[in-house]
């Protein structure tokens, strides 16, 4: 049976503060309680409460990490995660809807990755220098898996990074990305199907 559901992109509807290209993002809803908590934390951080911003980092650090890892070589990702959160901290006043923090910072992360490639592309080919705690074969296997995930459509690779690398469950992914659980499930299912095909080729 042909796939009738397209991948659902991890783009929030509230992120217009940060310019983006491409099609209009699909409608998304963050769970009311979760978004309200984000809004409270953003307002506290704006008032100078660094603990509140730490909480936002705890909530979204893995999401930002996964989005970057889906696009950028592993040894660049940690620095870029910090870049993204520093940028968010500085531009917190620009976020019109505090409850939209999740989608907003995800968009900053995507743009930061794009910017990184724009700068790097003309000069150096990025090495994938992953130091695995396992042996050489495991390292090669991990490299291959990451490369395969990165070769998937954007929504699949982001969702799979969150699930397989960051260890989030589907419901957790939905909560932190604003996607509906059904969309996450679709992305996981179809993404994993494509990934199996790539890895078993």
């Amino acid at each position, binding site marked *: 049976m042909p796939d009738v559901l397209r991948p659902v992109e991890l783009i929030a509807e509230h992120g217009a503060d940060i310019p983006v290209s491409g099609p209009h993002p699909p409608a998304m809803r963050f769970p009311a309680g979760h978004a309200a908590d984000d809004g409270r934390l953003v307002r506290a951080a704006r008032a100078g409460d660094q603990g509140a*911003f730490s909480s936002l980092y705890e909530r979204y650090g893995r999401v930002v990490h996964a989005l970057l890892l889906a696009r950028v070589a592993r040894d660049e990702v940690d620095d870029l995660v910090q870049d993204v*959160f*520093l940028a968010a901290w500085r531009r917190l*006043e620009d976020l019109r809807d505090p409850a939209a923090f999740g989608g907003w910072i995800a968009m900053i992360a995507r743009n930061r990755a794009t910017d990184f490639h724009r700068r790097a592309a003309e000069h150096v080919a990025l090495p994938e220098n992953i130091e695995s705690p396992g042996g050489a074969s495991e390292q090669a296997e991990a490299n291959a*898996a990451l490369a395969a995930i990165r070769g998937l459509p954007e929504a699949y690779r982001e969702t799979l990074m969150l*699930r397989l*690398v960051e*260890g989030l469950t589907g419901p957790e992914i939905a909560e932190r990305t604003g996607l509906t659980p059904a969309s996450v*499930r679709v992305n996981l*299912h179809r993404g994993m199907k494509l990934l199996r095909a790539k890895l078993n080729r």
Partner: protein
Amino acid sequence: MTPSHDDTDRDQYLWDGTGTPDPEVARLETLLAPYRHRAPFVTPTPMSTLPGRAVHPRRRFAVHAAMQIMLAAASLVFVVGAAWFAHAVRPSGWTVQSLAGAPQVAGTTIAAPSRLPVGQVVTTDNTSRARIDVGSIGVVDVEPNSRVRLVTSRAGEHRMALDRGGIRALIWAPPGLFFVNTPAATAVDLGCAYRLQVDDRGWGTVRVETGWVAFEYDGRESFIPRDAMCATRPGFGPGTPCYEDAPHGIVDALTILDFSPTGDVRRKQALDTVLRQSRQRDALTLWHLLSRGTPDERVRVYDRLASLVPPPASATRDTIARGDRRALDDWWSSLGLDSASWWRIWKRKWS
């Protein structure tokens, strides 16, 4: 096609980790888990606090008290944050690319993005523009008829010189890592976007779009927030900052106060203008004037600023006339702009 029981079970494990583990998913989890995000949170620096938040007068005392408590911790955080970033930002070098026309590096027109070695010069004619990637901490656009040099590029310090012309800098590093030398003063990025112009006489102007910039020369300091500007002159250093929407006459009056000798007969009228025209928002300007000019002028500034923003207990006429730094800092904290303590700590590091 109806999914088999195995398919359903595999999807359940993929969905939430329950049910019978899918061997392939479990294997991938094991392989990839070491690459999970574990980096500790690096607290944003205090200067990253967005400036310009309006503080209601009734809240000012509460805010002030809270700020005092936070200052010590914030200062420590700043040092730690800057130290982290100094190591995190690798000195990956600067690159230059053309945005328009035919900009040159070391006298050679650049046809493709090029490395900018330390000591080399980027020049643009009246039809050229260039973009410099400053390591991984920001970008600098070089406007037409400009000449900039790369002075230093290493972890912890990125420094360029603007000999003439204009630049627009957008820097996302923490405060105190990016510097622009001009003939009259050094601009120190405090996390911001700004435009800097220097004419053939070496006279400069900075206009801040977001964040803050500090200007420093020979112990004279100016702090310029978003929507404000500040002039510089060789031999004088930075002038007094003022907001772009400052009332009529203030900019011209500040030019006289900043760049004329203390015996200039125009000074009294210029100060009259500044004091008469200042709004509460212009407390930024008046605060800088507290430590400039003659003792008599400072007393007049004190009285006017006190009428706009009540001074803290430490800021008396006497302490301000003596240039007491704590009194100045305390009053700065009362302005509802930002703390000056980060500056004292950070300045020791780079001066």
